[in-house]
Structures are given as C-alpha cells and as structure tokens.
C-alpha cells in the first residue's frame, strides 16, 4: 500500500493524542492515590476524635454523677456536724456549770455527752471530706481528658484540610483525562476512517492495474503484481515477473499505446531486441524497457516517425533519450539490428568532470 500523507498526519495526531492521554492518566493516577490516602487519614483522625470525645464525655458524666450523689449528702453532713458541734458546746458548757456548782456527777455526765458529740461531729467531718475528695477526683479525671480531645480535634481539622486539597486536585485531573481520552478516541476514529479509505483506494488501484494487465494479456500468474507507468507519449508500460519486484531483474515488459493496442511484448527472462516489437505497417515508435536495472526512467523521449530509413546518409531517424530522477541521462540511436551511439551523461557534474560520461552502476545499455 503506497504511503498516504493524510494517513501519516492522522497517525501522528493519534500518537500525540495517545501520549497526552497517557500523561493525563499519570496525573490522574497520582491525584487518585493522594486523595485516597488523605481520605483514609481523615477517617482515622475522625475515629480518634470520636474516641477522645467519648472518653471526655464519659468522665464528665461520671463527674456529674459523683456531684449529684455526694452533694446532698455533704449538705446533710454539714447540718449534722453543725448540730453535733452545738450539742458538744452545750454539753461542755453544762459540764463546766455543774463543775462550778460542785456537782461532780452532773459534770462528768455532761462531759461525756460533750465528748460523744465531739466524736459524732468529727465523724461527720471525715465523711464530708471523703465525699468532697471524691468530687475533686472525678473533676480531675474529667480535666485530664480535655487535652487528648483538643489534639484529636486539631488532627482531624488538618486531615480534613489535606483531604479537601487532594479532592481539589483530583477532580480537575479527572476532567482533563476525560477530555484527553475523548480527543484520542476522535483521532483514532479519524485514522481508522482514513485507513479504510486508503485501503479501498489501494484495492481499487490494484484492481485497476490488474484490469490493465488483463487487457494487455499479461500472463495470469503475474496479473496481481504488476508495475504500471505511463510515459509522455501516453503509452502504458506494464512490468511484471521481476525478481523481488515486478520491475526487478529479468522482468517482462508489455507496452500498450493510447488506443489499447499492444505494441511491444517481452516475456519474463526473454532477451531484449527488435523481435519484441509487434509488427505494424504504420510508422512505429520504439518502446523500450529501462536502460537501468535499478531505476525506471522519469521520462522517455524519442523522435523520428520511421523506424529505420535506408534512403538517408546511413544514419537512423530514430533517437531515444531516457532521463532519470537521479540526474542520469542516456541516449542512443535505435535500429532493428540493435542500438548504436549509446551514451550516458551524468547531469550532476559539469562538462570536463571525469565522471560526466560514466554510466551508472545499474546501466544495462
């Protein structure tokens, strides 16, 4: 299949679009992983905060319970201790008065009452102290949970910020990838469409060449692989059966004029020569194979309407020139008995250069 510039351009565009899609995917992949990582971190920080809050809340509830349990009892103990203290004071006052009255028994009785009230009061005080300490301990336990909760809250805030930043990068990367993928899909579709078209055209060209080969009567086994070219005179040259390629060494060569008439036939591996020309009563032009085995001529020119004239000074009226795209030029005079005055010119070098008239390495004339 011959090269198609538009197909090459579309392939290049497709390759570029593919690379951009890959690049966008790399960015998206990194952003996805980062977002996932920060989301996990946020989740862990949230769990930590919840646990710290639960601990703080639990200690607070405990503190409140101890307060509500111990508070009324402390108030009661205060009242009772106040009463016991008053009793103790009255008893000791009464004992002192009895002592003054020299009533020893009464004084002793009142003193015993006083001591009992004192002991009772001290008991109330001790219990009250214990209850107050319980409240204090509960409060301290609650206070101790506060720093952990504060840290967990800060940790969560930071993790959420990182997660939000990762999300802000991830979402545009998703859009860019989607866009790059759509562009790639579009270039792929355009390339495939063009490829189908080029293949169809190539098949048609092959069919056309096959049709030309069939019309010229090229042997069946070569018809699917021919090289067809038209020269400046409108003649169609058909090459086939060469080694490696249709116009390779040993190729066959048919020539068809404008009207579709075959004027020259040389089969594969046949020798060159006048015997290959189709007989004609009209003045004929000489159709030739390439004077080089590795190059087809860019153009062929020949002038002279008569193949050979004996009536002139001994020269021939038929002069042929072939020129090639690498600057070589060959000319000769053709007769039915052979070629004469064959001369090569290398147009890439000037007159006087030693290589000017040296034939190329693949010259067959």
């Amino acid at each position, binding site marked *: 299949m011959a090269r198609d510039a538009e197909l090459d351009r579309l392939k290049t565009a497709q390759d570029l679009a593919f690379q951009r899609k890959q690049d966008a995917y790399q960015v998206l992949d990194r952003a996805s992983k980062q977002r996932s990582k920060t989301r996990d971190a946020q989740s862990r920080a949230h769990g930590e905060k919840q646990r710290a809050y639960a601990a703080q809340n639990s200690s607070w509830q405990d503190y409140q319970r101890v307060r509500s349990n111990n508070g009324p009892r402390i108030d009661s103990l205060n009242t009772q201790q106040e009463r016991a203290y008053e009793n103790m004071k009255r008893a000791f006052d009464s004992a002192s008065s009895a002592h003054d009255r020299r009533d020893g028994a009464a004084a002793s009785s009142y003193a015993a009452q006083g001591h009992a009230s004192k002991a009772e009061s001290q008991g109330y005080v001790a219990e009250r102290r214990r209850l107050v300490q319980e409240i204090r301990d509960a409060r301290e336990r609650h206070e101790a949970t506060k720093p952990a909760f504060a840290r967990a809250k800060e940790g969560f805030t930071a993790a959420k910020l990182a997660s939000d930043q990762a999300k802000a990068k991830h979402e545009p990367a998703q859009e860019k990838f989607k866009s790059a993928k759509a562009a790639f899909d579009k270039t792929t579709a355009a390339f495939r469409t063009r490829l189908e078209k080029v293949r169809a055209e190539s098949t048609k060209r092959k069919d056309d060449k096959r049709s030309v080969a069939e019309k010229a009567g090229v042997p069946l086994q070569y018809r699917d692989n021919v090289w067809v070219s038209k020269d*400046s005179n409108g003649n169609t040259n058909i090459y086939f059966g060469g080694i490696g390629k249709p116009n390779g060494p040993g190729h066959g060569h048919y020539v068809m004029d404008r009207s579709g008439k075959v004027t020259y036939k040389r089969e594969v591996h046949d020798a060159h020569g006048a015997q290959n020309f189709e007989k004609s009563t009209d003045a004929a032009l000489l159709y030739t194979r390439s004077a080089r085995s590795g190059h087809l001529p860019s*153009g062929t*020119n*020949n*002038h*002279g309407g008569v193949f050979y004239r004996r009536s*002139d*000074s*001994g*020269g*021939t*009226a038929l*002069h042929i*020139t072939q*020129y090639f795209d690498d600057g070589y*030029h060959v*000319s000769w*005079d053709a007769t039915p008995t052979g070629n*004469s*005055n064959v*001369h090569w010119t290398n*147009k890439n070098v000037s*007159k006087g250069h030693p290589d000017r008239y040296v034939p190329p390495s693949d010259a067959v004339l």
Partner: protein
Amino acid sequence: MIRKYADNSDILEYLESFTSSIARVLENASTVNWDDIAGICDQRYYSLNQKQNEPVPLNTYLLDSIYTESVNVIEDQGKGKTDR
C-alpha cells in the same frame, strides 16, 4: 543557432544540456517540445565525436516541424483560437 553550429560538438552539447534542463522545468507546460530539440542536439553532437562512423545528419526535418508548430500556435493565439 542549432543550424548555424551544426558541426560544432561543444556548442551542440551545451545546447543539449540547456534545452533538456528547460524541458525538465517546463515538462508539458510549453508549446515547444524542448525534449525533441535536446534530442536533435544530443544525436548530432555525440555522433560528431565518434570517429569510426559518419556523423548522423542534423534532423532538420524535426527542427522545421517544431518551428512550424510554434508559429501556428502563436498565430492561433493571436486569432484567439487557443488558450495555450
């Protein structure tokens, strides 16, 4: 000029190079068949340099044909018959 220097192989060789270059530049865009003119010069100059054979005569028949055809085209253009 070709007729004037029909026996001068150097000038004819120069003219062959010159006219074949014009032919390659113009290809089919010219009224004049420059390839034919180059071929006339080429055929004559090369044969002049071959000592073993008589030189091939200058193809004046073809030169005249080219000249006549060019004149006809110019005249036709003047009459508006052709857009070449």
